[in-house]
């Protein structure tokens, strides 16, 4: 509902904003196409995320939103900051999404289901729930840009304004708290996770709010404000219970409406001024864009929880939930609300008022100017209308909050399964919620009034945090991973041998680790060898001999011949081992592979073949390659040996079962029965891959011919 409603307004705004924003860029049409495509993908993923009842489905939609957001932030591909911001958003939300999957698997391992309703039924307090829920929460916190993952959101502001308005105020960040809301019954099983949520939420309120007071670019102020506001929501969920959940639900709704309209206002202002986005260089815009100023005022008021807007009730409900928890919590949240009011006042005042302007017209003339400009407003109506629609919703909600509160209660019902009926109305008395609201207004006044005292210190603190903060850690990690990846890549692509080494050596290490970790008792058995096995032993010896011999010759054709000799002697082994089906297939495959090898050699330029024949002359390779080959072969041998020594009872049963059922399936030959019946789906998958691969090879060859 939220995703589609705000989505509609933002889409309408973007229809007008985007062509102007992208005008004059080389491939503006392609960018517009991409924009609409990914916006729709995002909308679909968001609706899917909201309706999914299953952790795996949530994971898939979760990643879809991350991908859409990546493409949208990086819409202007020629801009380095857009690319870096897009990558950061993708990595921070994508890497933590893996934790979501791990958390889902932890819960699955314990309770055997991914379905949320079933999990709620089965789960009880315990380590598995705490661990799984904590992992899910980390993913959610990263998505909602909570400390210490907050740094991606301001960077994502390089996206076109409609993207910021939609994804980074209403939808993508909301996905995080949406997940928290969905798993609330699990969270309530673990006090540790609840406490952690409250701590992270409160920290985020302070960090986001302080930075919103400090930053200069308009969209960055809004981004930090979003971070801080979602801190409230996380705190509300951490407080738990029906009151907390309903407060969080209403908070999400009110914040999304207010913040989307503020982003659209910021975009409009920036576009009117030819891209000026610094608060310090703007002032007195009220005279030039009065209607925008009014809309922005209501939106700011809504966000800052002034009465007569929907925002007022979001704070009311939150204070109420906090009071149920403890008075100290309520006071802390009220102080945070004061912070919000302070940075919103700075935002609006900075853009639209002319501070200390001596020539400011008297109030009557000013209103006349505003009315005149409203008639001749230079701002396109198509930009104003969607903003106005959202702002109207804020005012309606301020007078008549019931429908919105009902929506939040529905969300609580969806989360907790118990109906909530939260009262919301204005009370003109000295109840605690009202006092807290007054306290918040007073805090804001104090913060703004003492600006001179803290501004420089805060800026210094921000710079210091930039040197050691989480963003730094991110940059270092990405840089180190990049270097590691480059090193591995440089080694791997040198030639075919290093490429194989890059696969074999890590495999060998993994296998060795597996061997060390597994109990080996009874897994390395030697069977008896009698006179009847002579042919088998000879064939095996031949296989080994030809395999070793393959390493010696220089000429490639000889190698192919020896390789196929290895295959043929293995086929003999199969035949004597009582597997004629396998032997037949082995012979056929060997023959075909020899043909294909020879065909490919015919295609390679003779120069390349000749150069590769000199390969053995380099000394270091004569030592290194056999070492790698022997090591990899040895570990493969050990694993196969142990697997064949002690097949698990289930494996034996399954094999016997297949043999018994073959005649029923009209197959007296079990191998055929397995391939074309019991395991027909596997076979179908394999042949499909075969056809697709061969089509690819054929088109490559056709291109080579035409070249």
């Amino acid at each position, binding site marked *: 509902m939220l995703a589609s409603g705000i989505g509609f307004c933002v889409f309408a705004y973007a229809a007008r904003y985007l062509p102007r924003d992208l005008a004059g860029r080389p491939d503006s049409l392609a960018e517009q196409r991409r924009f609409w495509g990914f916006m729709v993908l995002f909308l679909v993923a968001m609706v899917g995320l909201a309706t999914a009842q299953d952790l795996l489905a949530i994971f898939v939609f979760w990643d879809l939103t991350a991908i859409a957001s990546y493409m949208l932030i990086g819409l202007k591909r020629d801009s380095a900051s857009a690319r870096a911001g897009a990558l950061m958003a993708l990595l921070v939300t994508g890497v933590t999404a893996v934790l979501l999957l791990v958390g889902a698997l932890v819960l699955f391992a314990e309770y055997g289901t991914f379905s949320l309703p079933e999990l709620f039924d089965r789960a009880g307090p315990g380590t598995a729930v705490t661990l799984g829920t904590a992992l899910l929460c980390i993913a959610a916190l990263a998505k909602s840009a909570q400390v210490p993952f907050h740094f991606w959101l301001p960077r994502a502001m390089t996206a076109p304004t409609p993207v910021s308005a939609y994804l980074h105020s209403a939808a993508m960040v909301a996905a995080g708290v949406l997940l928290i809301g969905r798993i609330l019954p699990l969270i309530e099983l673990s006090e540790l996770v609840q406490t952690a949520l409250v701590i992270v939420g409160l920290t985020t309120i302070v960090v986001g709010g302080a930075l919103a007071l400090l930053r200069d670019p308009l969209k960055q102020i809004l981004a930090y404000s979003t971070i801080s506001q979602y801190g409230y929501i996380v705190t509300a969920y951490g407080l738990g219970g029906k009151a907390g959940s309903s407060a969080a639900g209403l908070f999400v709704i009110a914040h999304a409406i207010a913040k989307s309209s503020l982003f659209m206002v910021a975009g409009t202002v920036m576009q009117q001024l030819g891209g000026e986005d610094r608060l310090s260089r703007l002032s007195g815009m009220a005279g030039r864009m009065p209607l925008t100023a009014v809309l922005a005022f209501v939106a700011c008021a809504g966000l800052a929880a002034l009465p007569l807007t929907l925002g007022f009730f979001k704070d009311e409900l939150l204070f109420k939930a906090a009071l149920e928890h403890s008075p100290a919590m309520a006071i802390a949240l009220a102080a945070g609300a004061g912070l919000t009011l302070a940075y919103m006042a700075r935002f609006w005042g900075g853009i639209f008022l002319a501070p200390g302007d001596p020539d400011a017209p008297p109030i009557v003339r000013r209103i006349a100017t505003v009315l005149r400009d409203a008639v001749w407003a230079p701002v396109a109506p198509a930009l104003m209308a969607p903003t106005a629609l959202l702002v109207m919703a804020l005012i309606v909600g301020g007078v008549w909050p019931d429908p919105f509160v009902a929506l939040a209660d529905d969300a609580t019902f969806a989360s907790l399964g118990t109906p909530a009926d939260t009262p919301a109305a204005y009370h003109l008395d000295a109840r605690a919620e009202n006092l807290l609201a007054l306290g918040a207004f007073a805090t804001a006044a104090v913060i703004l009034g003492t600006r001179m005292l803290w501004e420089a210190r805060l800026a210094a603190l921000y710079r210091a945090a930039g040197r050691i903060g989480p963003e730094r850690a991110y940059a270092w990690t990405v840089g180190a991973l990049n270097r590691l990846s480059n090193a591995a890549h440089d080694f791997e692509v040198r030639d075919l041998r290093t490429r194989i080494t890059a696969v074999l050596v890590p495999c060998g290490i993994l296998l060795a680790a597996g061997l060390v970790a597994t109990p080996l008792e009874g897994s390395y058995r030697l069977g008896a060898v009698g006179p009847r096995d002579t042919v088998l032993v000879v064939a095996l010896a031949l296989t080994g001999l030809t395999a070793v011999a393959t390493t010696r010759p220089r000429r490639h054709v000889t190698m192919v011949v020896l390789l196929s000799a290895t295959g043929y002697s293995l086929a003999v082994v199969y035949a004597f081992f009582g597997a004629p089906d396998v032997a037949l297939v082995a012979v056929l495959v060997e023959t075909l592979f020899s043909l294909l090898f020879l065909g490919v050699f015919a295609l390679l330029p003779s120069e390349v073949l000749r150069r590769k024949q000199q390969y053995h002359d380099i000394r270091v390779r004569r030592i290194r390659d056999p070492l790698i080959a022997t090591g990899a072969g040895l570990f493969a041998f050990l694993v196969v040996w142990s697997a064949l020594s002690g097949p698990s009872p289930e494996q034996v049963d399954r094999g016997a079962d297949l043999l018994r059922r073959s005649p029923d399936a*009209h197959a007296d030959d079990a191998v055929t029965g397995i391939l074309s019946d019991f395991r027909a789906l596997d076979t179908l998958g394999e042949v499909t891959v075969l056809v697709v691969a061969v089509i690819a090879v054929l088109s490559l060859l056709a291109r080579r*011919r035409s070249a």
Partner: protein
Amino acid sequence: MNTSSIVVQLAAKVLAAPIAVIAVALLVRGAGDIGDGFSAGAVAALGVVLHGLSVGAEAQSLRVVRWAAPIAVGGLLGALAIAAIPLAFGDPLLTHAPEPGSTPVTLGALKLTSAVALDAAITCIVFGTLVALIAALARTAREVGAGEADGEASRDDDRPEQDPRSGGGPGGRAEAPE
């Protein structure tokens, strides 16, 4: 035309019919005996390769070579259809028909079951992909090889040994660029 190619031509002509019979037998009797769709397709493809060797460059114009790719794709579509038909009757994918345990209709040794139909589709896929792949390799090798030979006077190294079992087929052409 040298002696060896005459021998190959003769062998190809004489062996064509038995190879076809073996391929069909592997498919039909596969359900009860050694062999299956894969082996049948591979044997048939080897038969075509042998025939291709005997006629050389003209092999490209053989009808079966031109139809190889469509046969493979048709086989794949057939296999997917066989897998999907049970869905129309409300059964899971790839349900065995007729019912397990019942007696299927037979045509000689051929049992008419869904598994055998799938096997036949696999035969088409294996046969089609292999023939198309080898024909394309041979054709590319000839055309690209001819292009290279024009550019640089062929410095004939000693001929590479031939694989006796693979019949020295495309291998015969393989030495061209060496």
